[in-house]
């Protein structure tokens, strides 16, 4: 292969960088987003092509094998079910972090014992962040795929152990910055963050996954940026910074939506908070309704807002929900969807699941758009969501979720909740919404119950 001068390669990288930024810019809305992918793909192809033309490359065999194997693994990962996208995303964070860690390791052994201090510092950052993101993301993927127990596992002194591990890794890094020839320390600087990554995810439950995945996204980006410093590649620094800031923004949005700080998500496993609220449930009564009654009320409504939660995805009910949407829309009912930022297992997950079921995206409202509409809504239909509709978050100072922004479902004229049983949500908190006079509980499996409502609606259409 012909080799090209470094200046030309740098110009190719410059164009690739511009395309990456445009790619993200075009992601801002659904009409331009696919153009964004094209820009990203062209930028990537240019960057890889440019690299292959570099002077230093003498042997293409291993590169070819790597690219072919990568493509073979990548294609199935690009074709997973939409419900499996969160674990796929976690897995790809692990792959990205794996790449960065391996490159950092190789660079260290190529350069030792003469590694300038700044370079050793960023190399340590690269390897520590990469290693903990690698195992942390694998753990997250395992929990999401349910090959690992989803319940948070906590023990006494957990935070102490975790922070201790991290402190040791940092201490080793400092030592290596001072004495980069001490190669025997390097494996520990990888091994300890690998263990830390596992320990970090052990206490985290399913409902915290949106925040955790975003945070791991951010770490993966930062480690890649650190790698850019080591390799003196502006392209990598910029791509890493973009990815890092994206993950960071998403984690801020997610933790705000749960009214929790990062520190609280990472160090304060939920679960220990049930005690206060769960006491006085048996005295209260709920009203329940059949599919026939629910269908009647929905058919008579002018405006319906459906509030989907992760329970809907678990029950695979989204296609039945789409049938309900069609059936009601045909009768002239205005049907929209209200989506809480943490509905699902990763940011925006619920939107993708509903889009997959062919529900038009302009019917999907985020929390800020949906809340002013609930007071004018005839029926709010809650499917598989719980804590994000709990009015105690607004009113009950003693509630563990007090202050968490919620969907104001209780302001609708009638509320219907499809639920298997009266068991509480992930936080173990009772939901006063269920005991309101205007609330009807529809007990059953989400998919089955929505299907029954659809059947009632189409049946009554013939009268």
């Amino acid at each position, binding site marked *: 292969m012909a080799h090209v001068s470094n200046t030309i390669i740098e110009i190719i990288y410059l164009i690739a960088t511009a395309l990456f930024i445009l790619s993200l810019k075009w992601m801002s809305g659904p009409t331009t987003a696919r153009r964004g992918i094209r820009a990203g793909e062209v930028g990537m192809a240019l960057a890889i092509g440019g690299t292959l033309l570099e002077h230093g490359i*003498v042997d293409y065999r*291993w590169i070819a094998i790597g690219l072919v194997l990568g493509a073979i693994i990548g294609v199935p990962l690009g074709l997973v079910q939409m419900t499996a996208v969160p674990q796929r995303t976690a897995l790809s964070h692990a792959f*990205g972090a794996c790449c960065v860690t391996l490159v950092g390791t190789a660079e260290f052994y190529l350069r030792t014992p003469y590694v300038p201090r700044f370079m050793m510092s960023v190399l340590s950052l690269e390897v520590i962040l990469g290693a903990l993101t690698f195992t942390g993301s694998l753990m997250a993927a395992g929990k999401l795929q349910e090959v690992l127990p989803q319940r948070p596992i906590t023990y006494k002194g957990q935070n102490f152990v975790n922070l201790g591990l991290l402190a040791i890794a940092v201490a080793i890094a400092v030592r290596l910055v001072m004495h980069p020839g001490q190669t025997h320390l390097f494996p520990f600087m990888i091994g300890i963050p690998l263990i830390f990554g596992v320990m970090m995810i052990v206490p985290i439950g399913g409902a915290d996954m949106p925040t955790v995945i975003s945070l791991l996204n951010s770490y993966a980006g930062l480690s890649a940026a650190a790698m850019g410093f080591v390799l003196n590649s502006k392209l*990598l620094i910029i791509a890493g910074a973009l990815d890092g800031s994206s993950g960071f923004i998403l984690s801020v949005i997610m933790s705000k939506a749960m009214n929790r700080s990062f520190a609280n998500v990472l160090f304060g496993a939920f679960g220990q908070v049930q005690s206060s609220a769960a006491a006085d449930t048996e005295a209260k009564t709920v009203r329940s309704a059949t599919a026939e009654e629910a269908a009647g009320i929905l058919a008579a409504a002018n405006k319906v807002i459906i509030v989907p939660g992760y329970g809907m995805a678990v029950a695979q009910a989204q296609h039945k929900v789409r049938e309900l949407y069609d059936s009601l829309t045909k009768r002239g009912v205005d049907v929209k969807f209200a989506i809480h930022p943490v509905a699902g297992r990763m940011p925006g997950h619920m939107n993708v699941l509903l889009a997959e079921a062919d529900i038009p995206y*302009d019917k999907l409202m985020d929390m800020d758009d949906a809340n002013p509409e609930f007071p004018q809504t005839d029926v709010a239909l809650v499917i598989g969501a719980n804590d994000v509709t709990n009015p105690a978050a607004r009113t009950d100072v003693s509630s563990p979720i007090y202050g968490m922004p919620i969907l104001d479902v209780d302001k609708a004229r009638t509320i219907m909740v499809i639920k298997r049983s009266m068991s509480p949500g992930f936080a173990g908190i009772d939901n006063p919404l269920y005991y309101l006079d205007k609330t009807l509980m529809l007990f059953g499996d989400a998919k089955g119950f929505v299907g029954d409502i659809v059947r009632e609606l189409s049946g009554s259409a013939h009268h």
Partner: protein
Amino acid sequence: MSPDLIINSLFVFMLAGFIGFEVIRRISPLLHTPLMSLTNALDAIAVVGAIALAGEGKSTLATILGTIAVVAAFSNVVGGFLITDRMLRMFKSSRPQKP
């Protein structure tokens, strides 16, 4: 690594961080999942570092680690773009599209 080079790189990092912040803040929550899979694919640009290691033949260790790194990063390139495209194809409007 000269001090100039370090400072230059830090400037680049800072500016890119701000650009990322401003660009990504404007992205609708509707598209947060495809956003994450897209940034994941773009982040896999780390593959260029891996390619250099795998091809430069500086040491056996570097070649082995570089090759594995190429596999890991390139699977993200392929998988990331593929799934982002699949997701975005599903987003349809109820209003007729303008030609």
